[in-house]
């Protein structure tokens, strides 16, 4: 049975790590963007989204990642993803997201 979207977040070496769980739909995307914005306004410019526990997403949810990239670009920041489901990875590729966002295996790859 599907669990509703939820997330946890933490700061590690000034990198915001957002770990999602469940369906990243319009509501989930908006929650992620709000959490991001809070830290962005405090000067955080590196963001890692861990999607190990999210294997369902829709394009409205993804559009919030584009919002985040837009804001990060203004400050020379970067959006990173880890643990992407293969179909979601393909979707991000189709949209061209990896021209701006970067896949990493773990937070340690972000200097």
């Amino acid at each position: 049975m599907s669990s509703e979207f939820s997330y946890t977040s933490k700061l590690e070496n000034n990198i915001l790590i957002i770990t999602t769980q469940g369906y990243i739909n319009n509501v989930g995307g908006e929650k992620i963007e709000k959490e991001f914005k809070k830290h962005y306004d405090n000067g955080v410019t590196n963001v890692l989204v861990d999607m190990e526990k999210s294997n369902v997403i829709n394009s409205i949810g993804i559009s919030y990642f584009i919002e985040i990239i837009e804001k990060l670009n203004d400050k020379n920041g970067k959006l990173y993803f880890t643990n992407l489901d293969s179909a979601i990875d393909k979707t991000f590729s189709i949209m061209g997201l990896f021209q701006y966002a970067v896949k990493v295996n773990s937070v340690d790859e972000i200097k």
Partner: protein
Amino acid sequence: MDKNIILEIKLPNIPDIELVALEGLQLMGRCLGIDEDKIGEAKIIVTEAIINGLEHTGKESPFVDVDFTMTKEKLIITIIDSGKGFVPSEVAEPNLKDKLKGGNKRGWGLKIMKSMSDDFEIKSDENGTIIIITKKLI
């Protein structure tokens, strides 16, 4: 002959109801031993098609009809809404570079559906829209 699994769903317009269809895809795929990644891609396609259908379907009939026919080789997806329809050729191709210059970030559904499917057909008029998609599973 190849085993043929058919699932038909009439979805109401409520939040996240597309997950019902995705659960169906998952179980059909498991029954036929389809590769998880292929089912994952089918789920992306179906999610986008249902969301569009529900967003545009008529107030008098706030439903979207979803049909799947799956064999080991391929999945045929049919999504029908009773909205006002649209002219697909008039929909601009989304471009990330432009989207990053401010404004609306949406408009990716059709592009994603087309890119992920092996055949993609839209029939749309003022009575609604039918999308028929074929996705190879091997």
